[in-house]
């Protein structure tokens, strides 16, 4: 039988990225295809590696804190938190109640902003370009709150070792009220826009299925983990700050495919909004003014290795701080960056899928390369 009488396919290697919008920055995937079907995928990372961990060894603790914003730059405040918690654990300082509430409030606001980007870009990568503008508008309302609170939109550095930078103010209150007013109708509208869209469903249902067992083996965390049916959220299961005072409901999906990861994020947005309301109400009950704990100007923590972890928009972020007890600079800082651990599963997940599905998989993970590359 001649080769032409049969449908045959050609093997080739495709370089996905690093310079393409659908790779969410500078992710590069070297994928081998047999015709349209992926047979091997090797993610190549490091294009955005800035050596933040090395840089922190030559900065003092407060100076180092601002570098953490640049990891997951879509949710800067959330990255400050594990570093601040680790250093505070080393120092043994207590944080005022109001500062803790402000930390939680800003973290939830930035979590919302990050989810808006995650959902919007996801839909855009699947071809619905207008789907990105609506969530970005909502994100802008969230960033307005941060801007009014501390003067910076994205890399805020709002959380300081020992507390927070600025107290809640009227301008931030007004901006948050705008968010309260705008977000619920948006969510309703977006559900109508996307949920039952035939193209969206076809491109995501049954694509990139991760079983709970594989998700655990690869150390997935955050929404990507919960979309695979593992019911785990640090805010509920190991509360830090004052999360133990609030009821954190954790939505869980079972399908583990790209569609479940979208549904998961949309359901979590409702929860985040409810949490913001509750934390905001609790914040109003506390006396204004006390937002910094007793922290000396010059930080020289005792020797030791401490580890702190928080639930970030992308998953569980960990921070190891090692101090030699003599210097004002940390001896070593290491970050567990959730996106880094999440995408390690790509080389197992992608084979068997078509070219277009690879884009859906990358988009559904909501990755940030600043975080992956460190």
């Amino acid at each position: 039988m001649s080769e032409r009488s049969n449908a045959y396919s050609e093997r080739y290697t495709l370089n996905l990225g690093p310079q393409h919008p659908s790779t969410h920055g500078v992710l590069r995937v070297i994928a081998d295809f047999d015709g349209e079907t992926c047979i091997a995928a090797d993610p190549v990372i490091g294009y955005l590696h800035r050596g933040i961990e090395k840089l922190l060894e030559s900065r003092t603790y407060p100076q180092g804190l601002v570098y953490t914003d640049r990891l997951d730059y879509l949710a800067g405040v959330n990255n400050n938190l594990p570093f601040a918690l680790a250093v505070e654990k080393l120092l043994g300082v207590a944080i005022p109640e109001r500062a803790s509430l402000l930390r939680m409030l800003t973290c939830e606001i930035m979590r919302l902003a990050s989810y808006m980007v995650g959902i919007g870009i996801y839909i855009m990568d699947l071809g619905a370009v207008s789907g990105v503008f609506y969530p970005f508008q909502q994100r802008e309302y969230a960033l307005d709150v941060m801007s009014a609170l501390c003067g910076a939109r994205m890399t805020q550095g709002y959380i300081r070792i020992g507390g927070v930078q600025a107290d809640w103010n009227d301008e931030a209150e007004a901006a948050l009220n705008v968010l309260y007013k705008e977000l619920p109708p948006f969510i309703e509208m977006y559900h109508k826009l996307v949920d039952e869209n035939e193209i969206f469903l076809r491109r995501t249902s049954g694509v990139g299925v991760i079983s709970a067992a594989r998700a655990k083996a690869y150390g997935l965390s955050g929404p990507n983990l919960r979309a695979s049916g593992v019911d785990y959220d640090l805010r509920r299961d190991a509360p830090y700050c004052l999360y133990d005072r609030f009821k954190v409901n954790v939505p869980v999906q079972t399908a583990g495919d790209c569609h479940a990861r979208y549904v998961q994020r949309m359901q979590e947005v409702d929860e985040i909004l409810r949490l913001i309301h509750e934390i905001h109400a609790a914040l109003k009950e506390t006396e204004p003014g006390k937002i910094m704990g007793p922290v000396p100007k010059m930080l020289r923590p005792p020797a030791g290795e401490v580890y702190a972890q928080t639930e970030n928009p992308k998953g569980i972020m960990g921070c190891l701080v090692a101090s030699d007890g003599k210097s004002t600079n940390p001896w070593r800082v290491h970050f567990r960056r959730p996106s880094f651990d999440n995408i390690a599963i790509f080389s197992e997940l992608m084979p068997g899928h078509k070219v277009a599905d690879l884009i859906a998989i990358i988009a559904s993970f909501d990755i940030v390369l600043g975080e992956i590359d460190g």
Partner: protein
Amino acid sequence: MTNNEVKPKAQVAAEIVRLPGVAAIEGGDCEYLLEAAALLPAAAYLLEAGYEFLADITAVDYPAEEKFRLLYQVANYHNGDIITLKLDIPREQPRADSLCGLYAAANWLEREVYDMFGIEFSGHPDLRRILMWDGYAGWPLRKDFAAEPGKYQGRRRLD
């Protein structure tokens, strides 16, 4: 939902020190200092005990003591408890056993440690640089690697 049971921290603390080469660190919260041969049995025990979440592997360089300290943060998907395994290895020809056979997550985490510190992991299926490019010389996070501000470190070739 799909979660299985996990042994409480106190029970792990009582049981893990019975393994040869595992010693509890005083004052630490579930931190254990291991001998090189004890790493795989300790990790296997923790996996059996429900600690399925290998959260982190990293190293700290202590040149004055001529050692690297490897830190393994082993957690679970239930209550946020972390068991920290610490393993001191010599700075000359540093080498440790790979956990890839137990945790798939170890693959990239160990590659990162290899990339930054030059620590070899025996039994790793694919030990190559991950953040720096292939052919890069030096181990950036070692203390004797001097960061030179302003020095252009070369460009990565697409090949």
